[in-house]
């Protein structure tokens, strides 16, 4: 919360205490300068002419009709008339007559005409607004949430400490247990508990990239899972008690045995919660919805676990197109990744989350901390 007061246009540099930061990978519309269009301006002789000119212009040539409603009409004695492209070659005087302006007004407007570049779409973020102002005065409705994603102020110190912790676990699995294969962890952000963890298994099946295995382990916590036969070893070697525990406790069924041992025995990680929320029975859900306590809750809180709804995924590699889309289908809330991949589909070769037609969009963050690997590909 404290960060809110700092200058939002700049990305927040993190304090020395947290070594990890997560940059939001926003879609291009937030990262690029606004596109511009060329318009005709008329410089009036004095400000008293503004009101009568405005009266006709707002009726005959409203900004809304040109898609420029985000712009102000007047800057000092300059008044914005129309987009040059709308004339399609017609002389300006003729065009103004066609749209129905009176002779008197046209006479005033055409005395001192010039062309000017103006932003052709509305600014979405403050930095775009400030940049746009250099061309022409704009209206701006700031979106606090997107602004906080852009500046990094969405995360407080506690969040960043948690990111660092999960990345530490990821790194430990990656380097000690999985011989530098891509790894991933799924988190329930409501209680910061580890729901599932997985690593690439492409030696068994070429589509068993880390995220694909991870979503299948999440499915196991919900009584599902497709690769039970292919991936049994990871959950083997359990002593009698642990096996019994796993049987009774399907909430731990998304975490391979060796990872579970690491989490339970390594002092650095014993404070991390483990296990998924058990799936709810239908009647509980219906009761809750009927009691209408749920109006402000997200779908995970409302209905309980369903696929990866509401879950956050931490991956050592940027996912490829197959995996990135698998996470869309799985309805993940956020995807954090450490290393960019040469075949990555969230920033390197595409920002899949910018494809508007998709029925679900997650937020994407690139984390910087350990140089986790020399991997270059999602697998």
């Amino acid at each position, binding site marked *: 919360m404290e960060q809110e007061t700092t200058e939002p246009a700049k990305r927040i540099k993190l304090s020395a205490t947290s070594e990890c930061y997560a940059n939001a990978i926003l879609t291009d519309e937030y990262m690029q300068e606004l596109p511009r269009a060329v318009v005709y301006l008329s410089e009036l002789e004095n400000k008293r002419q503004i009101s009568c000119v405005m009266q006709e212009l707002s009726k005959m040539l409203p900004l809304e009709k040109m898609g420029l409603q985000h712009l102000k009409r007047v800057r000092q004695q300059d008044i914005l008339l129309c987009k040059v492209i709308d004339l399609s070659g017609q002389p300006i005087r003729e065009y103004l007559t066609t749209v129905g302006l009176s002779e008197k007004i046209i006479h005033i407007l055409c005395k001192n005409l010039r062309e000017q570049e103006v932003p052709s779409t509305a600014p979405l973020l403050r930095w775009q607004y400030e940049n746009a102002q250099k061309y022409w005065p704009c209206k701006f409705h700031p979106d606090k949430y997107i602004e906080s994603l852009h500046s990094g102020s969405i995360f407080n110190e506690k969040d960043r400490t948690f990111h660092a912790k999960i990345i530490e676990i990821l790194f430990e699995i990656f380097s000690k247990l999985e011989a530098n294969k891509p790894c991933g962890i799924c988190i329930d952000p409501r209680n910061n508990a580890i729901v599932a963890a997985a690593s690439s298994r492409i030696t*068994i*099946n*070429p*589509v068993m990239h880390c995220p*694909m295995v991870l*979503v*299948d382990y999440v*499915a196991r916590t*919900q*009584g*599902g*899972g*497709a*690769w039970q036969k*292919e991936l049994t070893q990871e959950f083997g070697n359990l002593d009698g008690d642990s096996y019994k525990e796993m049987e009774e406790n399907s909430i731990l069924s998304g975490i391979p045995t060796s990872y579970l041992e690491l989490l339970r025995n390594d002092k650095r990680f014993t404070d991390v919660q483990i296990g998924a929320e058990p799936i709810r029975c239908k009647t509980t859900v219906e009761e809750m*919805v009927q009691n209408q306590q749920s109006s402000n809750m997200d*779908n995970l809180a*409302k*209905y309980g676990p*369903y*696929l*990866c*709804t509401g879950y956050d995924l931490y991956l050592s590699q940027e996912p*490829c*197109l*197959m*995996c990135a*889309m*698998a996470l*869309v*289908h*799985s*309805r993940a809330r956020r995807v954090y990744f450490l290393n960019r991949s*040469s*075949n990555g*589909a969230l920033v390197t*070769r*595409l920002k*899949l989350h910018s*494809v508007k*037609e*998709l*029925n679900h969009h997650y937020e994407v963050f690139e984390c910087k901390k350990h140089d986790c690997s020399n991997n270059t590909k999602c697998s």
Partner: protein
Amino acid sequence: MELFMIEAFAEAKRVLAAGEVPVGCVFVLDYDDKLQVIARAGNDVNGTKNATRHAEFLCIDQVMVFCKRKNLKESDILSKVTVVVTVEPCIMCSAALHELGVKEVLYGCANDRFGGKTLVDVSYVTNKTHDKLHVNGGIYADEAMTLLKDFYKGENPSAPITKTKR
């Protein structure tokens, strides 16, 4: 090859009865001048609680078993496989099929919500621009669409209620 679409439909109808989105798929191997179906499946998303269990992925898993049993190299087999599927493969499946290097993809109706061909340049993103995979649709498209429409008239029993749009 188009006739194999009928077998894909059989799979789609089979899983529809189980409450799945009715998409069916067969992998046809062209080997020694013989055409042979080596994998057939329909979606199994609700059954596995795994949203990635599209018909194509179940078929890929079957090919792995097939190759292991016959002691064949997967890539040799996949490069001779035509994927016949009732609905345009989604971005995920299309990316996987590009990555695996199948011979070609034939589909029924287009998929404007997730379609790999419709929404994204999959061969560019997966970096498979040479040896471009041919993905062609329109075979029995009306039948495929009708089947989907029948499904969406009913309700997906596992889907959560979507938020009402403001």
